[in-house]
């Protein structure tokens, strides 16, 4: 069914790594190890982007997801390290029903994907290079699309980021007894604010 070209083998390996990581993320007891298993998932997705021809997105995926979000998650787990012993049951009492529901949902998704009649011309790819004339994946073209057709979503996303940053600072900031407030915490970010707390934890 699947022809074993080098491209396909790499895709299959990526899929294996990604899915193994995903399964370990939900099944691993220790939260910090679950967080480590997110690494192959994010890296595998970046690999998919790369193989599908979206190099810019692959770089962004590594930069934001692996370089920032996952680090923040590991940071938070480290800070709340003693909160839950890894011996505690990781799953709540919905474990079994949710597992069954997940299997059914998965069957539905795969069934839907399999039964859809995709336009035959587009249904398969077997190489990285796009057909000539379609090479618009360059960053400049993306910039034009982003700032001309999608200017409003772009601006909203910027405002969202700003709101997120301020919100994270306000939330993570500890109420101080005001007296020895030598270093105002409002310069801090989400990454920085918990850092200050660490001294007290």
């Amino acid at each position, binding site marked *: 069914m699947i022809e074993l070209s080098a491209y396909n083998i790499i895709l299959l390996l990526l899929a294996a790594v990604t899915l193994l990581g995903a399964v370990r993320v939900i099944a691993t007891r220790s939260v910090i190890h679950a967080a480590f298993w997110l690494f192959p998932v994010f890296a595998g997705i970046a690999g998919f982007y790369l193989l599908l021809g979206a*190099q810019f997105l692959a770089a*962004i995926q590594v*930069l934001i997801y692996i*370089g920032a979000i996952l*680090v923040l998650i*590991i940071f938070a787990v480290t800070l709340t390290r003693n909160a839950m012993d890894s011996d505690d049951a990781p799953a709540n009492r919905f474990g079994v029903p949710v597992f069954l529901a997940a299997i059914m949902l998965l069957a539905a998704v795969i069934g839907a994907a399999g039964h859809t009649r995709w336009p035959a011309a587009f249904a398969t790819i077997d190489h990285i290079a796009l057909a000539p004339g379609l090479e618009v994946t360059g960053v400049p073209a993306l910039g034009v699309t982003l700032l001309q057709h999608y200017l409003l979503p772009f601006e909203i996303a910027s405002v969202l980021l700003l709101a997120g940053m301020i919100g994270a600072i306000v939330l993570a900031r500890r109420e101080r007894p005001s007296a020895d407030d030598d270093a105002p915490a409002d*310069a801090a970010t989400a990454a*920085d604010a*918990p*850092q200050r707390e660490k001294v007290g934890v």
Partner: protein
Amino acid sequence: MPELLRYLLVILGVVLAPLTIAAGLTWGERRLLALFQDRYGPNRVGPAGVLQVLADMIKILTKEDWVPPFADRPVFVLAPAIIIIATYLSFAVIVFAPGIAVAELNIGLLFFLAMSSLSVYSVALAGWASNSKYALLGSLRSIGQMLSYEVFMGLSLMGVVVMAGTFDLGAIVRAQAGLWYIVPQFIGFFIFFIAGLAETRRIPFDLPEAESELVAGFHTEYSGMKFAMFFLGEYVAITLFAAMLTVLFLGGWHGPGSQSTLVALGWFLLKTLALIAVFILIRASLPRLRYDQLMEFGWKVMLPLSLVNLLVTGAVVLWRG
């Protein structure tokens, strides 16, 4: 020369050169520090003490390779490898001379940023896996520091991207044929340099391993070759940042004289080594910052400065059409 052989030679050179420079730096840094501080430094083994590198290597390889029983073993072993891998991967996209690069990607600069963001992991994992309070404190400090400084490290380079109109490192160097970007982008150079110091955890920013308060920070529990990996990783990272500064701001391989590949490589090496010397000079002359000073400096000075730099650069480029 056949194309494949030439390519293999380039790869071999890119693998060996940073390692050689990093190993040489273990001696060179001590000699230079001694020079700046009016001492001798290591001068016993071999001519001018050069063979100190070899002596250190033998010493460190014969040390016991110990994993603490309370450590998280697989993660503990993985952490020192990550720093070498992450920094080494970045060398793949650096264009040393016309046509001398492992991979001239059109997103080369982004690749560099992505890879340098990975080196946080070695510190984070080392601190976590060591399972000791000094290591944990050091790694928490270091994550905060590196995440914060990464933000404007990326932003400071966007001025260069705007001027060159590309993320391709080769194209960026070619765009500097007339004028090196250190002149129009001096603020970017300055910010990137400081961010480089912080990312490599060099002395004004070496809080993660501040020995007077944290023993040795995140690598407190490491010994033998694993410790040497962190040590070497720092030097490889310094070499990487010096090379990136050369590519982005000092015109890469451009220089007076003939245009042959060898001369171009020579210029590149010269600029890189000069920048490394500046890194060492800074270590010899500056005291360590306090953590809140570090954060305030980053978020209140460097971030706004890099944003203004980007804004002005963009405006000028638009105005000139």
